[in-house]
């Protein structure tokens, strides 16, 4: 029995997070109204955060809530409202014949493949000792993560700065109202 092998709380947490995640995800892809979809997305994000906590990623869980649910989804909602598209998607027939069936087929095959391959490898084949220290809990997690980001991932961290700048510049350029060409000169 499951209960005998694993601690009950962890099972409950898993089931809860899985329920949140999957319900939210299915909501995103089925709900017609973009606002509802965005709210479903939040549900998934919460679920993921729960799963993070369950797996000793406390800091990431916090970031998940703050950044994702707090910023990204808000951005979505903002744009939805801004554009005024908070209605159902158009009800015209799908122009693409067989798209759903084929998509389902492709995705199911792919994901089955992914799962099968993972299972055949007993889910993980990396060697823990390769990368040093054990994973810490709680406050130490933040420390550890910080250390990692500023040592091993220093360059990547610096690069994110560039990424964000370019994204911001890009967004500004794209969303800017068209000016007359004379001004552009």
């Amino acid at each position: 029995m499951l209960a005998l092998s694993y601690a009950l709380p962890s099972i409950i947490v898993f089931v809860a997070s899985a329920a949140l995640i999957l319900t939210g995800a299915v909501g995103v892809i089925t709900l017609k109204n973009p606002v509802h979809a965005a709210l479903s997305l939040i549900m998934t994000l919460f679920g993921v955060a729960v799963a993070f906590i369950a797996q000793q990623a406390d800091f990431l869980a916090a970031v998940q809530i703050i950044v994702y649910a707090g910023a990204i989804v808000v951005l979505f909602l903002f744009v939805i409202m801004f554009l005024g598209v908070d209605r159902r998607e158009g009800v015209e027939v799908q122009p693409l014949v067989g798209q759903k069936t084929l998509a389902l087929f492709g995705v199911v095959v792919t994901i089955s493949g992914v799962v099968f391959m993972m299972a055949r490898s007993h889910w993980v084949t990396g060697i823990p000792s390769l990368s040093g220290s054990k994973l810490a809990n709680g406050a130490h997690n933040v420390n550890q993560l910080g250390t990692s980001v500023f040592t091993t991932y220093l360059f990547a961290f610096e690069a994110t700065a560039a990424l964000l700048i370019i994204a911001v510049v890009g967004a500004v350029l794209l969303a800017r109202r068209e000016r007359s060409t004379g001004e552009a000169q």
Partner: protein
Amino acid sequence: MNVPAAWYLVLAAVLFGIGAYGLLTRRSALIMFMCLELMLNAVNLTFVTFSRTLSDIGGQASVFFVMVVAAAEVTVGLGIVVAIFRRRSTTSVDELSEMKG
């Protein structure tokens, strides 16, 4: 004892699949973006799960970067949607099929 990593990995894979399926079937650009977020979240979950299994902080650090990327992508993506909406008053990608062949 915690539930095995496999559970979370499968969960992540399924989430990835749902995201991909949504991307393929939804017409609203905004919802497609959300589906992309679902997929990235699946990746994050995978990272965290492996991080736990390997007792390695690297996976969690990676999640950090993925989040940044997700944020950047959404910013630009929404910028594009706004730009298109100004011109065409739609967010349905199916109406953007002028170029083909």
